[in-house]
């Protein structure tokens, strides 16, 4: 029996009546098979009626992203014992951890890349989390992941290590389990088992590994497609370029055996697709959704079936990023 000091109410006990939508805690709103995030069909951006595209809108989790699922799973199991919870995050995991930790009265510190949108930093401060900002090049042990290197150093330094504990989403199997137990079954059930393609990004790799494993077990013919930035220097927070990474820097929870294809996407293609989605379908998503959808649209040129595309979060945390894109668009087209 593992030590479980964190008394987060289990979503399934007592059973919630999601029709009434009355909850005893905000964390009860985190998605589960009984209370799934919506799947929404795309009707105007997709030219191929034989390849139906459905976005799984993870923004409908209570703290705004797909990371709510894993934060809940990891914090439930974390042996805090009076220590401060610390985690590197490009924002979404940090927000979810900070919010859930607040419901438990746990102190939280989040290490963020200094380049993330100011909006996310404000939200983390609003939640009372102490922020550590790290340049991507800060740590030679984790090139291009300064925040991860900083947390690693805090956990190794004799001066600080006894005061902190980290969920460590890159190595924590509970990250995978959250998607294997919930996101995967939700998708299978919502599509009546008819899903043929699943698209997700590479980041910590918990989503693609957990959902991919579940779907492959149900039907090995389902194609699992992973999306990564075309270069390491990108503006797609939460996504990681896996190709070319030394093995020790590849997230330990990634299971490549469930992945059928790895596809690259540029910032321009990702932002352009996210903007097109807003203008054709009225759905406001973060740039990472744009990246994943851009790849799905490539498959729409040749494939048929039912595709589910993970939409990790919404556009509202990326106002400053989109402003840059829209300003360039205005200059190009003279709007």
């Amino acid at each position, binding site marked *: 029996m593992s030590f479980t000091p964190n008394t987060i109410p289990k979503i399934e006990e007592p059973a919630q009546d999601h029709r009434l939508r009355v909850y005893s805690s905000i964390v009860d709103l985190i998605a589960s098979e009984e209370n799934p995030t919506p799947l929404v069909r795309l009707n105007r951006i997709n030219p191929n009626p034989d390849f139906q595209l459905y976005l799984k809108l993870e923004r409908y989790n209570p703290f705004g992203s797909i990371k709510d699922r894993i934060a809940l799973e990891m914090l439930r199991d974390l042996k805090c014992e009076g220590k401060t919870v610390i985690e590197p995050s490009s924002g979404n995991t940090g927000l979810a951890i900070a919010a859930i930790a607040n419901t438990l009265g746990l102190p939280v510190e989040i290490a963020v890349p200094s380049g993330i949108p100011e909006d996310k930093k404000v939200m983390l401060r609003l939640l009372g989390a102490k922020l*550590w900002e790290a340049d991507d090049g*800060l*740590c*030679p042990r984790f090139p291009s992941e*300064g925040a991860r290197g*900083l947390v690693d*150093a*805090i956990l*190794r*330094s004799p001066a600080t290590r006894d005061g902190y504990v980290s969920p460590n989403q890159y190595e924590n199997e509970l990250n995978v389990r959250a998607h294997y137990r919930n996101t995967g079954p939700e998708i299978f059930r919502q599509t009546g088992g008819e899903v043929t393609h699943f698209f997700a990004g590479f980041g910590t790799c918990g989503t693609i590994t957990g959902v991919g494993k579940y779907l492959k077990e149900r039907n090995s013919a389902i194609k699992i497609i992973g999306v990564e930035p075309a270069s390491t220097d990108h503006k797609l927070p939460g996504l990681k370029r896996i190709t070319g990474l030394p093995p020790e820097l590849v997230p330990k929870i990634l299971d490549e055996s469930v992945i059928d294809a790895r596809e690259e996407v540029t910032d321009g293609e990702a932002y352009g697709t996210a903007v097109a989605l807003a203008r054709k379908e009225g759905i406001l998503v973060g740039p990472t959704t744009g990246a994943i959808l851009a790849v799905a649209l490539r498959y729409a040129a040749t494939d048929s079936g039912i595709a589910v595309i993970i939409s990790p979060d919404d556009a509202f945390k990326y106002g400053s990023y989109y402003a840059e894109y829209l300003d360039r668009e205005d200059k190009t087209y003279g709007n």
Partner: protein
Amino acid sequence: MEIKEYDLVDYVCPLSRIKAAQVLNGLCPGERASILLGDAESLKSVAQEMQMRGIKPAFEKHSESRFILTIVK
């Protein structure tokens, strides 16, 4: 002039670099400080931080796990 001493031996890289930057930010122009570091990785990283800020530190190696950087802001 008095030299302020800061012991960062128990901070590993890159936390040592961040702590050293905080030390530097707290110094007044012309003030001197010596920073004790516990590993070569920290030494390299902190020296890099100082150089980026236009400060050339003096360096002394006491042992494999004791390095002293002396800086003037």
